[in-house]
């Protein structure tokens, strides 16, 4: 195995050791079930509130564990790096956060995640009688959608959805309403990402793909997988167009729409570049006649140390803006609390 430029010990211990550090860093927000690798909101379950659970492979920090807390998730299940968690985790989390109002599973559309969450929901319903609904996010326009494929990946919209649905759940709304809202949010969001560098899964020990110094990958997901297209490096202005055009071109955006604009970093790209990119994105949106109601810029749904970024647009109405502005108090997103 080659050398890895990572701050780690044994690759097999990365996830469990990171969870210990996370717990030490955020004692006011979370508690961690280390055996099951579940990050719980400190005061879960909240009586009368629909429980919100997400989870997925690790390597996307702060997602999902960093989004546990008031106004967002009640629990997050951490899988191995880039590997969906197992049904036992979702089952344990489901039972733990169920406060009688049922539980929503927020699942990113990956074959593994979907199957593992499905098995958990079946088992939880059978065992404990907990009412479980699921929403699957699939906002990545880089992927051709079709009945005969695995469909689009769930990426940036997941972050926005967890915030918005989290605010709605905090208001005490019933499970079905929360699930419908989640579905509506997913339907109104689109994303597209690109990478300047690959990333290295600790257990694999070398970069998932090789990229020459004059190349970039366009249409990547969040698991270090290669993208749809390898292109020559380009200025930020051109990269912004490569990301924004397919997002805006896809349904449902049109002139006059209002959106939450989310400029996300893949983990290895510093904030100065994300702000610079966001400047380009805003100019493109202005030109398209799309109004930005709220912005989010930073590393929120990442792919280990990959350099690159993604753009997510979510079409919003006044209610969604209100839910966005509602208090949130998690390790990764915090305001008005």
């Amino acid at each position, binding site marked *: 195995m080659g050398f890895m430029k990572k701050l780690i010990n044994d690759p097999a211990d990365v996830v469990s050791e990171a969870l210990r550090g996370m717990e030490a860093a955020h004692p006011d927000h979370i508690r961690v079930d280390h055996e099951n690798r579940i990050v719980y909101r400190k005061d879960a379950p909240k009586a009368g509130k629909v429980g919100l659970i997400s989870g997925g492979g690790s390597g996307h920090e702060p997602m999902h564990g960093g989004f546990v807390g008031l106004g967002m998730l009640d629990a997050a299940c951490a899988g191995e790096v880039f590997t969906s968690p197992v049904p036992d985790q979702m089952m344990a989390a489901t039972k733990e956060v169920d406060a009688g109002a049922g539980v929503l599973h927020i699942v990113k559309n990956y*074959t593994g995640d979907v199957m*593992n969450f499905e098995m958990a929901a079946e088992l939880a319903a059978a065992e404990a009688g907990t009412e479980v609904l699921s929403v699957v996010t699939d906002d990545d326009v880089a992927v051709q959608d079709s009945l*005969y494929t695995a469909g689009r990946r769930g990426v940036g919209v997941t972050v926005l959805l967890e915030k918005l649905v989290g605010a709605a759940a905090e208001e005490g709304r019933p499970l079905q309403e929360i699930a419908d809202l989640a579905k509506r949010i997913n339907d109104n969001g689109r994303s597209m990402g690109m990478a300047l560098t690959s990333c290295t899964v600790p*257990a*694999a020990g070398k970069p998932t793909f090789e990229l020459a110094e004059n190349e970039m990958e366009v249409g990547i*997901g969040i698991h270090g*997988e*290669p993208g*749809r297209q390898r292109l020559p490096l380009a200025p930020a202005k051109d990269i912004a167009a490569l990301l924004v055009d397919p997002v805006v071109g896809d349904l449902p955006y049109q002139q006059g729409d209002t959106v939450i604009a989310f400029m996300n970093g893949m983990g290895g790209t510093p904030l100065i570049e994300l702000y610079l990119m966001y400047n380009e994105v805003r100019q493109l949106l202005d030109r398209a006649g799309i109004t930005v109601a709220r912005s989010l810029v930073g590393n929120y749904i990442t792919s280990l140390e990959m350099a690159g970024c993604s753009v997510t647009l979510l079409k919003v109405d006044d209610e969604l803006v209100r839910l966005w502005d509602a208090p949130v108090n998690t390790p990764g997103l915090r305001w008005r609390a």
Partner: protein
Amino acid sequence: MGEQKTVEDFANWLRDLAVTLHENAAYLTELDSAIGDADHGTNMDRGFTAIVAVLDETTFESVDELLKKAGMTLVSKVGGASGPLYGTFFLRFGTALAGAEITPASVGAALKAGIGGILTRGKPELGDKTMYDAWAPALEAYDGAVAGGSDLGGALAAAAEAAAKGRDATIPLVARKGRASYLGERSAGHQDPGATSTTLLLESAARTLA
């Protein structure tokens, strides 16, 4: 050779498979790097290491209990796509053998049930560039061999050979399921990791259950 297979024989298969997957972990991950997320080898290795730990601790009374426990272990320890897929395979494979004598025919029916589990979970179709592209021809070859009078070892050898062909046939395919599908046309030219691990599984079975 033609004798009735015991719990020990099936346990030996799982142990042999664990060794094989451990030895091939880097290779499977490398295949998964090209068109996936670089974890298939680690996933399979983690799952079968856990199975060996279970074998070391528990004595199983019957083949079906052994195999169901293997399936549950995979479901609980692997995650990703391969965890539920192989987990469900072993769960249903074992369930189908409950109370049954181990014969080429009963194993064939169990294989079919196991593969049915993969179909239920993953909904793969032939040519989607998944492990099913190894499983489907393997089952056909197995049934053919049994129909032609083969014993268990012979039928498994035929299955393994067909799986290897199916695995190789995934190379030119454009993926429609799993992560490789995100690459579109760029997935062509690469061998599917899951079809590769399926072939290793059947080769190990042919070796240890002959």
